[in-house]
């Protein structure tokens, strides 16, 4: 099909208008214009006829044997299935990563605890004699003293006293306010003279060797 140069623009316009005129969507003016153009243009008449055939062919009902009712039944069954199990399905789907993550964390922890246990056993150290100061059965070091400071004694004075006599607190205070003091590591046991000086120190109400201590 060829178009003469002087009508080429009109043919382009006609070409574009054809689908909408065929569908009945074109304006009356557009419809009238196309009819006028077709009356004088054999090429566009031929094209328009072909467009009509195309539209007619495309408007034929589907030639596929697809049963709407059967398809609808399957769709409803699909919806039923999804609604019957949705919370479970969705929860499973959404929580699956969480569950997997928690399981992985538990496994990592278990492995870590196992490794730690093996390591601790391998070190073969004697168990530390860990105890609290309030334990009744706490062992008393050799040369320990029971000392009861006055309630008004300042902490600074108490510390100065411990420093002066090379003592450290190993227990107490008990129910009557008595502390157990022991010589610092490497220091000689407290002598009777030292004990006398301690008793004479202001703020000390009571100072006696622990019974049974050497």
């Amino acid at each position, binding site marked *: 099909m060829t178009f003469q140069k002087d009508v080429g623009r009109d043919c382009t316009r006609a070409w574009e208008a054809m689908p909408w005129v065929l569908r009945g969507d074109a304006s009356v003016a557009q419809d009238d214009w196309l009819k006028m153009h077709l009356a004088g243009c054999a090429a566009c008449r031929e094209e328009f006829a072909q*467009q009509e055939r195309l539209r007619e062919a495309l408007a034929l009902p589907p030639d596929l044997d697809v049963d709407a009712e059967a398809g609808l039944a399957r769709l409803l069954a699909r919806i039923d299935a999804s609604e019957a199990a949705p919370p479970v399905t969705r929860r499973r789907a959404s929580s699956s990563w969480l569950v997997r993550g928690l399981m992985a964390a538990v496994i990592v922890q278990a492995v870590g605890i196992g490794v730690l246990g093996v390591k601790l056993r391998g070190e073969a150290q004697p168990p530390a004699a860990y105890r609290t100061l309030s334990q009744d059965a706490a062992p008393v070091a050799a040369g320990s003293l029971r000392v009861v400071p006055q309630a008004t004694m300042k902490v600074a004075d108490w510390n100065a006293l411990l420093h002066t006599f090379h003592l450290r607190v190993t227990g107490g205070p008990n129910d009557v306010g008595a502390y157990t003091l022991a010589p610092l590591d490497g220091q000689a046991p407290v002598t009777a003279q030292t004990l006398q000086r301690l008793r004479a120190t202001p703020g000390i109400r009571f100072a006696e060797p622990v019974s049974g201590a050497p």
Partner: protein
Amino acid sequence: MSNADNEADATDRQLLRRMAEGDRAALSVMYRAYHGRLCRFLARLTRRADVVEEAINDCFWIAWQKASTFQGDSRVSTWIMGIAYRCGLKALRQHGSEPVDEDTLPEDRTPSHDPDDDRIMRDWLGKGLERLSADQRVVVELVYGIGHTLEDVATIMQCPVGTVKARLFHARVKLRNVLPGLAGEHSIRRENAP
């Protein structure tokens, strides 16, 4: 948009609202109303009879789930055809695009006043459509078969109107050059459209 189109869209919107509330009766009405055009549209797009129902049901499965999200920016039919288009493309990706074997279709599938006339017309059309790309077939079907505007087609295919125009133009040029007239014309015309 004609008055009939407006009325149809108003009905569709009402059905869609009911679907959003879980009304299966509304879904059934909508399904039956759209089944024919979706069947034809998806057959044109995929050219596979065996995936058409699957694509239709995927389309309505999505429409059922997304009914409450319909914004009303387009006609409901445009919205549904857009979903169907994407379902059809998905089916094409999954199953390929083997042509429908017309010979395997039973004769009673053609509800026509004159089956011979329809057969000739279908054969004629089939010869033309098989030369088009999937997107060109879709544009031709949406414009000539279903009657959507270029703007509707652009919405359905999620592309600019200019792209739709170009696809329609090239589809028409191809059809004009490969399709003989029904009156026995077999000449192949040159590709020099306006």
